């Protein structure tokens, strides 16, 4: 898998401790849910941010996606809590 840009918002960003980063996940990481599991195992701050995958929302290249979405071809994947705008 090639390099992937991850961006984080709101309390996901605060818990991870950064707004964005570049990662190269292993080939076994095929979906958004796989990526959440892989990130959750990267350290304490990630484990905290992704401790409840059900409340994590994701977007691939700025479009909402579901956890089962494939990440192949993605340039930017965003993780954030449920939205509270309006």
């Amino acid at each position: 898998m090639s390099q992937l840009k991850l961006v984080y918002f709101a309390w996901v960003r605060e818990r991870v401790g950064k707004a964005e980063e570049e990662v190269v996940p292993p080939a076994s990481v095929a979906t958004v849910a796989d990526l959440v599991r892989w990130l959750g195992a990267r350290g304490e701050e990630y484990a905290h941010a992704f401790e409840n995958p059900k409340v994590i929302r994701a977007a691939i290249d700025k479009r909402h996606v579901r956890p089962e979405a494939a990440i192949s071809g993605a340039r930017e994947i965003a993780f954030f809590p449920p939205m509270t705008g309006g």
Partner: protein
Amino acid sequence: MPATIRLQRENFDPGAEAAALSRGRTDVGAVVTFTGICRGAEDGAPIAALTLEHYPGMAEAEIVRHVEEAGKRWPLLGVTVIHRYGRIEPGENIVLVVTASSHRDAAFAAAEFLMDYLKTRAPFWKQVESASGRTWVEAKAADDVAADRWAKPPGREAAE
């Protein structure tokens, strides 16, 4: 359909924005304006301010998508959506939706549709600043219910 979509730090004037949608034309028979305003208290506790974080690029794209969808569902003659980000104090505006149509039904429905979707699908997050510190606002299940009722397109008879 003319659409104005703005994301900005600055406050805005809802009256001026609403007037702009019907200025110089005589086909508009109804303009509906919704303004979301920062309250001075949350659950009975006073707040100092809200800070809105957003996902630049995606926030605009999501709003454009939903404005286009509203244009397909209702015979609209104009739409304006403004959403602020950054620090907003009690009494200041947060969001504006203005819809124009020949008749009120379409203008009311489209404004409500856009607000329900802005609440649940536009990537914005509110943080409350108060005497006890900063806390992220939790999403409300009622907002999801409100947005879900639009999932099935209404009958097209309104547009015909």
